């Protein structure tokens, strides 16, 4: 489930990166790379687990699925939070800089 959510996040961010110039300016490409990297790593983890458990891998318990889904959502939120902090620090459009400067002048 975590892998699935991570792959969906990677696909969505890649599509946003491709279609939206504003998003590219906000470095969404880095976020997409992070999701793809994590997805690849969880994919390897899934393959290893499949080799160990066989078809049982595809029949997780309800509790495991809920926990994994919750983890997947938290992973996406964490990545988004880090990305927001990153572009606020970088401030590519100088929005924060201009706002602080204007507030200081008033």
């Amino acid at each position, binding site marked *: 489930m*975590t892998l699935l959510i991570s792959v969906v996040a990677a696909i969505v961010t890649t599509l946003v990166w491709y279609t939206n110039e504003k998003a590219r300016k906000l470095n969404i490409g880095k976020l997409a790379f992070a999701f793809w*990297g994590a997805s690849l790593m969880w994919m390897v*983890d899934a393959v290893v687990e499949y080799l160990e458990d066989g078809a049982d891998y595809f029949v997780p318990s309800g509790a495991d699925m809920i926990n994994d889904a919750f983890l997947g959502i938290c992973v996406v939120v964490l990545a988004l939070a880090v990305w927001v902090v990153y572009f606020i620090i970088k401030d590519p459009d100088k929005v924060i800089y201009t706002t602080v400067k204007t507030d200081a002048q008033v």
Partner: protein
Amino acid sequence: MACFLVPTTEAVVTSIITKVIESSEEKKGIVKSERTVRRFSEKMKWLNYMLWGGSGLLAFEHLWHGEISPFFPFLTAASSPESTAEMLHEMATSGVMMAVAVTLVWGIMVLVTNKLEKMSFAPSVKEVKGEAK
């Protein structure tokens, strides 16, 4: 257990290599690229983002599952020799495979990009015909 440590280590190494390549490119006077051709250090950064991002999110997963602790030795699997051996085995198998998978995908990306860059620089049929006249 601690499989994410292998890609993290690779991320540290590739980040250092990127810095070295970047400074040597600047010394050689290779300026920050335009849309057509990217510097190799820029392509190296793709790998860094994937490795840092991936291993960071995996570290969070390990924290979630209680495999990382805030106190020494930081990894719960390092508390006994048996679990340490199991952890090292996992690092040698899953961890190495993770690092290889990410690097392989990056390698394919670089190859495709190089090919596209060469194509964008190759003279078009019209240009070649024009020169012939």
